[in-house]
């Protein structure tokens, strides 16, 4: 355990280093773009020195890292708001989308995956596979627009875009999250169904399942108690990756549904070359990603006793 935590330090260092370097490689003169329509050579030069763009990259990185470890990711020269504040404002929205989308994903995928695996090749399996491939083949932004057209424009059940804070009106909040969560959730459900199905089919070939059957245990009991847990490793790994990814917001979905999450902050900041915000957000997302996956690693031990006790099957 302590070894794993110590491992994190170099990983986080490399991750922040890369995110800093990559964002520095964005084409376009940051000072020029940010200076806006009324730029003068003087104002551009002033902004350049304010952003330390006249300093060598390692110096900028060391300075940034020194402040970042103390929780200061800088202040956007565009809006005068600190990056930490911007992330605080927007993270709850991305997190809510993440939770709702994963809940939808799992609620659909677990039953569908189990049912598909139980009678692999059957009608239900084929229907689920067809639906899953269909959803996977259609890009998220198309799904989003189709869902808006269907649920908001034609049926008028939920708003097409926008966001109501949870504390202002919980019901309106859920209504405003319905379409974006469904868009992300459907995509996740499709992938999860396929993963769970294939792992489950393998598990169902195991001797102990045959044993359980021979003992006359009811099918649903075998499927949910004996087969599901050992079949969920791949699902858990991918879930961890997806949660880590969604910590940074669903870039396209947040933009389409006008949800003010971390993803939209990132997109807007990239277009405006607000490097301070881009670097801060990318580093935050990278760190969150590493930490979530670290958490998933720990969960393996809970699911599989072999990992808990010793290194034999590392």
């Amino acid at each position: 355990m302590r070894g794993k935590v110590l491992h994190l330090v170099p990983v986080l260092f490399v991750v922040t280093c890369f995110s800093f370097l990559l964002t520095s490689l964005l084409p376009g003169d940051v000072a020029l773009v940010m200076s806006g329509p009324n730029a003068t050579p003087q104002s551009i030069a002033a902004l350049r020195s304010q952003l330390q763009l006249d300093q060598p990259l390692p110096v900028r990185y060391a300075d940034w890292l020194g402040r970042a470890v103390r929780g200061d990711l800088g202040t956007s020269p565009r809006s005068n708001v600190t990056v930490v504040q911007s992330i605080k404002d927007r993270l709850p929205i991305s997190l809510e989308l993440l939770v709702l989308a994963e809940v939808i994903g799992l609620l659909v995928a677990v039953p569908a995956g189990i049912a598909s695996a139980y009678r692999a090749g059957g009608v239900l399996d084929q229907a689920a596979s067809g639906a899953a491939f269909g959803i996977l083949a259609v890009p998220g932004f198309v799904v989003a627009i189709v869902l808006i057209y269907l649920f908001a424009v034609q049926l008028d059940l939920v708003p097409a875009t926008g966001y109501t804070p949870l504390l202002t009106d919980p019901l309106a909040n859920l209504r405003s999250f319905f379409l974006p969560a469904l868009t992300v959730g459907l995509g996740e459900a499709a992938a999860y169904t396929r993963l769970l199905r294939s792992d489950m089919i393998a598990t169902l070939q195991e001797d102990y399942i045959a044993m359980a059957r021979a003992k006359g245990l009811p099918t649903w009991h075998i499927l949910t108690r004996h087969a599901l847990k050992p079949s969920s490793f791949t699902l858990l790994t991918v879930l961890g990756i997806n949660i880590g990814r969604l910590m940074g917001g669903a870039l396209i979905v947040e933009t389409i549904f006008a949800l003010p999450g971390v993803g939209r902050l990132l997109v807007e900041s990239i277009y405006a070359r607000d490097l301070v915000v881009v670097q801060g957000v990318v580093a935050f997302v990278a760190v969150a990603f590493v930490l979530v996956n670290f958490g998933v690693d720990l969960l393996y031990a809970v699911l599989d006793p072999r990992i808990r006790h010793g290194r034999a099957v590392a």
Partner: protein
Amino acid sequence: MRKRSLGILLTAALLAIAACGGGGGGGQGNAAGPPKSGGSVTFGLRADFLSLDPLIVNNDSDLSVANGIYDTLIARVGDKGELGPSLADSWQPSSDLKTLTLTLHQGVTFHDGTPFNADAVVFNLERHMDPRNKSMALSDALLIDSVKAVDDRTVAITLKTPWVDFPQTLVGSIGLMTSPTAVKQEGADYGRHPVGTGPFVFKEWVTGDHITATKNKNYWRKGFPYLDSVTWRPIPDQDAKYASLKAGQIDVLQVATADQVVRAEKDSKLKVWSYAGNGGTFVMMNMKAPPFDDLNARLAITYATNRREIVDQIGHDKYPIATGPFPPGSTWDTKVTEPNFDEAKARAALQAYGKPLNFKFNIVSDPITRQYGQVLQAQWKKVGINADLVQMDQATLIQAAFGKQFQLQIFQYGDWFDPDRVLFNGYISKGSIVNFTGFADPAVDAALIKGRTTSDPTVRKQVYGVVQQAIAQEVPLVWLSYNTEYMISSTRVQNLNTIYSSITKPYQVWASS
């Protein structure tokens, strides 16, 4: 999409046109009877808001909200968007055009009760002039030498050099008047707690989702505003924005694309509003580098460009064909037309050039600009010109323009009101960072300086004629189409007539039930 991306381009780079404009136009009919008070309207805007501090406010979304909460010193009025009174009842330039004397409207107070007077104007302008405040309008503010309160309702602004077009800057963010009390009280947090004199009082801002403001019952324009409240919502995705209009989450869609206008015109539940501005879309050529340092190469491009086809195919005929900096009917148009489509002449120019004409054509990678690129590429190919399309994002394209690291690229001028804005920095040979093409002509320099430093309209029209003539001969750029700004609303929205530079003025908008 085209309006959006090219619009920013221009805003971001070409000229300091925060809120200027001209041309003709106006909205569709207003047959809904006498104005009615009450109700609310939600505007769907293009970009997210950063801050409501005029130091930072600078795009059409920010300015639309700002124009609800603040008033500017000078406004644009009427069908042609001419300069008219607002917080300043009148303004008088001195004969040497170095001093502008503003006479302020009396009896105006800010939402927090602070009186609006000459001291408030001095406070606001000096706030922009102080480089430590990093105003986005610093270059406008730097033109000012000093601001003095002559008496309670008179302000004298002295410029460093004579500039006939200075009043136009007071329409933009520098002219938005904030309450000095609130600015001092809120400090760095002011941008989220704006206090102005405007028709609506700031109520709430939910980050990234909306800003709401309620009726200012003591508004100084008697009888206005009509609405009880106004909400502004940024929705960056054009399709989602249109769907939100159809589903009723927003009542007005700002900055509509040609496709959306065509669709909305067939929809009985929607209304289209338009304003023909003076800006336009064009391709510009770098005259400082091969191949376009050769006039024949530039002529070949001009003659090979079929503007009619572009306007029909991409713009659905929603934007007029452009043949020069001034639209027909403009006060400044001296009827100089630039070389138009003629394939035979294009081939002749190409022959005179004497080499194969191959170059890189920079475009922004959004779907509509890409269409422009592809149609132009195909047109030029017909006469044997090979354009290699290079897609980039806006930031990169702007940098290429500033650094003159391009051969030919697509660009756009936004709406403008006085020719000095669009011509001076674009064509003056020295001291401008936005003369992208590298155009240089001593006669044009002299004409531009004359045009900036005289207020006689006859002289100005004559000197700008000289500029038009020179541009038509040297063809640093090929005009494609003039901008028309479109907004779409639900039928209950009335009197949305003033949409200069895609900025709305909600004080005169009302809603039928």
